[in-house]
Every structure is written in structure tokens, then in C-alpha cells.
């Protein structure tokens, strides 16, 4: 691949230079989940990282704020995989400006779930398990080779993650060019996939567990495994998700209030023994 080709991966002349784009994704990669919050999770990280390139795309203040608000919203996925998504959305915003707002949001919300599934498995579970077992075993024998190899692999991964961003950016442009006005249908369809994953997240990521038991003489019945799990697995997480979703839909309830409510419930639950940490 020639240097020139690399610098102009799309036909439409972009507002941003390759360097500006890379500086944006490097900002995101640096911040990562370092300002993670329970409400919008990686949202602020994306805003912080892309605020400069977005400024260039949206010279008008109003549009800029609108675009920022869009990215302030909930976003969360494996950071390595996020690069693909953010590459694509940057391409979309660069080409269509504020008109792409809904499509951008839709692409983010629908892809982040499935991408987290595959990304977390590889990046946070498989890779550290492999490297950790090898390097860990070497280490207990006083040998640091595995640890050094790990850092080298991380560097390789760092490079690959920038490539993933480029991939997303180029695909993003292709996507909008080929889909054209059908983009809204496309994003609606991807939302369906995203929502399917949301159903899974409720069942697996959200953890609510009660250690309560009925006990009398030699008879003991655990509320969680003996009753709740028999009615429906992940019953409590489903109820909590429904409750939170409903509360968030009410004018009087802000996400912050909901978070505080959950913290209070958790503390009270821990104090009274109504809630507990699920034994592995």
C-alpha cells in the first residue's frame, strides 16, 4: 500500500486530516474508562476524546453542542472494539454533519453490545488467561520473560487497535455511501440486534442476589435458588431493570437519583441481610 493511498482512503475529501483523526482516537485510547461512571459509562470519555475533531466538523456552536450531547449519552463496549465503531461514526459525521446524528447514535447503541461480547471475551478473558498462566508460572520460578513478552504483545495490540479505527472509518464511509437514504432502515435493523443483546445483558451483567433462607429444624429453603430461580432465572435483575427503566422515564427521576437509590438499597440490603453477594 502506498503512502498516498493510506492518506486518502476515501473518495470524498474529508474535513479532517489523517493526523487529526488519529489524534482523536489516541485521546480516546488514553482516557478509556478512566472517567467511567455508572450512568453514561464511557460517554464522557468519547466526548473528551473527540471534542477537538468535532469542533472542526461543526464550526457552528449550536450544532457542536448538539453533536456533543449526542456523544454524552450512554456508551460502553470493549475499548479496543469501540475503535471500530468510533471510526465509523466519525466518518459519518464528517460526511453528513449533524444530519447523521440519529444514525450515529443508533450505530453506537446497537453495535456496542455485540462488540462487547466478542471483545471482552478475547481482550479481557482469553488473552490474559493465556498470558497470565504462562507468565505467572514463569514468574513463580523467578523468571520475568513472560511478563516482558506480555508487554510486547500489548504494544502489538496497541498498533492493531489503531488499525481497527482505520477499518471502522473506511467502512463507515463505505456504509453511508452504499446505503444512502436507506441508512435509517439499516440503523433500525441494527437496533433490533442491539436490543436482543440488551435482553442478555439484563440476564447476565446485572447481579441481584438475596441470601435469605427459610429455616426450621433440619429443613432449609434458600429463597434465591428454591423460589426465585424456580419462578424464572434472573428474576430479580429483570425486575430491577424494569423498575430502573420506568423510573428513568419519569420526569421527576434523574439518573443520579436512580443511582443513589440503588446505593441506598444496596447498603440497607447488606445491613439487613436482604441482599448479598452471590457466592461463585
Amino acid at each position: 500500500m502506498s503512502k498516498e493511498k493510506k492518506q486518502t482512503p476515501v473518495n470524498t475529501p474529508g474535513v479532517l486530516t489523517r493526523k487529526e483523526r488519529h489524534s482523536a482516537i489516541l485521546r480516546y485510547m488514553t482516557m478509556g474508562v478512566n472517567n467511567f461512571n455508572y450512568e453514561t459509562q464511557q460517554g464522557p470519555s468519547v466526548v473528551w476524546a473527540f471534542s477537538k475533531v468535532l469542533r472542526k466538523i461543526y464550526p457552528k456552536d449550536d450544532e457542536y453542542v448538539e453533536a456533543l450531547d449526542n456523544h454524552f449519552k450512554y456508551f460502553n463496549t470493549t475499548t479496543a472494539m469501540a475503535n471500530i465503531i468510533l471510526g465509523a461514526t466519525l466518518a459519518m459525521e464528517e460526511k453528513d454533519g449533524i444530519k447523521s446524528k440519529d444514525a450515529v447514535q443508533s450505530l453506537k447503541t446497537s453495535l456496542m453490545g455485540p462488540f462487547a461480547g466478542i471483545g471482552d471475551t478475547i481482550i479481557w478473558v482469553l488473552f490474559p488467561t493465556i498470558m497470565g498462566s504462562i507468565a505467572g508460572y514463569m514468574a513463580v520460578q523467578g523468571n520475568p520473560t513472560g511478563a516482558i513478552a506480555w508487554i510486547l504483545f500489548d504494544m502489538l495490540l496497541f498498533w492493531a487497535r489503531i488499525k481497527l479505527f482505520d477499518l471502522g472509518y473506511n467502512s463507515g464511509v463505505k456504509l453511508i455511501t452504499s446505503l444512502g437514504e436507506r441508512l435509517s432502515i439499516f440503523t433500525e435493523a441494527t437496533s433490533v440486534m442491539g436490543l436482543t443483546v440488551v435482553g442478555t445483558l439484563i440476564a447476565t451483567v446485572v447481579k441481584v442476589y438475596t441470601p435469605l433462607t427459610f429455616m426450621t429444624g433440619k429443613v432449609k429453603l434458600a429463597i434465591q435458588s428454591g423460589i426465585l430461580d424456580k419462578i424464572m432465572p434472573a428474576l430479580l435483575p429483570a425486575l430491577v431493570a424494569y423498575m430502573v427503566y420506568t423510573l428513568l422515564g419519569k420526569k421527576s427521576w434523574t439518573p443520579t437519583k436512580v443511582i443513589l437509590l440503588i446505593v441506598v438499597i444496596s447498603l440497607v440490603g447488606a445491613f439487613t441481610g436482604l441482599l448479598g453477594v452471590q457466592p461463585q
Partner: protein
Amino acid sequence: MPHLLQDLLILILPAYALLDNQGITILNYWPVTVGLVAGLIMGDMHTAMVIAGTFQLMSLGVAGLGGASVPDYGLATIVGIYLAARTGAGIGTAVAVGLPVGLLAIQFDVVIKLANNFIAHKAQEYAHKKEFNKMRMINWLGPLFFTMKDFIPMVIIITVGPSAVSAVLNVIPKWVTNGLTIAGGMLPVVGIGMLMHYMPTKKYIWAILAGFVFAAYLKLPVFGVAILGLAAAIIIFQQGMAKANKKNAAVAEGVDDSEEGDDYDE
């Protein structure tokens, strides 16, 4: 290396490694890699690697997914290595003291992620006021808080000594640490709830129901569910396209039935 410089470097190490792992992930924050650096600093690579390896094998499979909080084995490793080098404590003692510090960090993690919420709101506020520089700057508080999470226990350990750790641990009642851990398990639901409000949840509630049943009852992993979701998405896309084409065709023929399509979309 003079003790003071060692202390300084060892103080910075966990804070940096944490931010690195949560961001660029080059050094990362696993026991063996931070142990490697700690060994270089303290000048006893062999002991450092043995302690690090012990914690590493202990932490296999531990992963903080979806914003979950997990024990801070990196911090535990550094504390252990520091104590072994300074006090000549055996490896067993080093591990025994390091571990509770790593576990304590779960609580801090939850508290920081709660605190970050306020930063996020503040930042958005600045954006609305068009104070874009402030909007950016305030975000540094996040990394700062995370730095503190590892900085504070390290300072205590270096200045007061390991006994301080247990003192602190004894002050906090069990139900508070437990409660924060429970909250940490439950809080990802807020993000999910927000997400549902951004998505066409009501229209495609069936997708959530199906995903839930496959995951909760049939234990289908998220990637399997995503493939099924993709299958459904393809159908939705095809139907959407068919409808759009039909509408276009109708418009071309001069029959305006645009309303019908809109009705469906509501």
C-alpha cells in the same frame, strides 16, 4: 537506588499502571507486569517475580466486564513486593498483607464510579454553557480520582506501615463494604436503562424478551444471542427495504400512500 527515590517510584507505579490499563493498556495492570517494574525499582527481581506470579495465578479469569469492580491484584502485588523488600517479610506474609489491600480497592472503585457521575453532569453543563475548555478540563478529575484510589493506600503503607491497613479495614463495618459490592453488581443496570431509552425499546420489546429467555434460561452466550439478533435484524432490514421500495414505486405511480408507512413506524 536511594530509599526515598524507591519510595517515590513505588508510590507512582500502581497509580500509573491503573490508568494505563484502563486506557492505552501497554504496561497493563496484571501482577506480573507491574511486578516486573516493582522488581526493577526495589532491586530484587527474583522475590518480586515470585510474589507477582503468586498473585497472577490467583487472579486468572478475573475480569471487570461491563463496569464491574474486581479485586485490585496489581495493587496487592506492589504492596507485597514493597513490604518484602523493606521489612524482609517472607513471601507468605507479603501475599497475606497485599491481598486485603487489593480487596479493599473494590469499594473505592465503586465510590469513584459514583463520583464520576457528577463530573459527567458537570461536563455536559459546561458544554451547554459553551465553555468547551472547562468541559474538557473537568474530565481530568476521573483519572485523578482513580489515581487516588491506589495512591492513598500506598502513602499510608509507606509512611505508617502495614499495620495501618488492618486498622482502616477494622473501622469500616462489614455491611458497608458488602453494600458497596452489592451496589457494584447492580449499578450497570443504570446504563442499560439509559440505553433502552435511546433505543426503539417499545417497538422492539420482543427482541429484549427473546434475548433474555435465551440468556437466562438456555444459557446461550452473548455472542450466540447476537447472531440470533443479527438474523432478526436482517429480516427487519429486508422488510423495511421492501416497504420503502413499494412506497417509492407508489409515489412514482402517483398514488400517495405515505401515511400508511408512517403509521407503522410509530
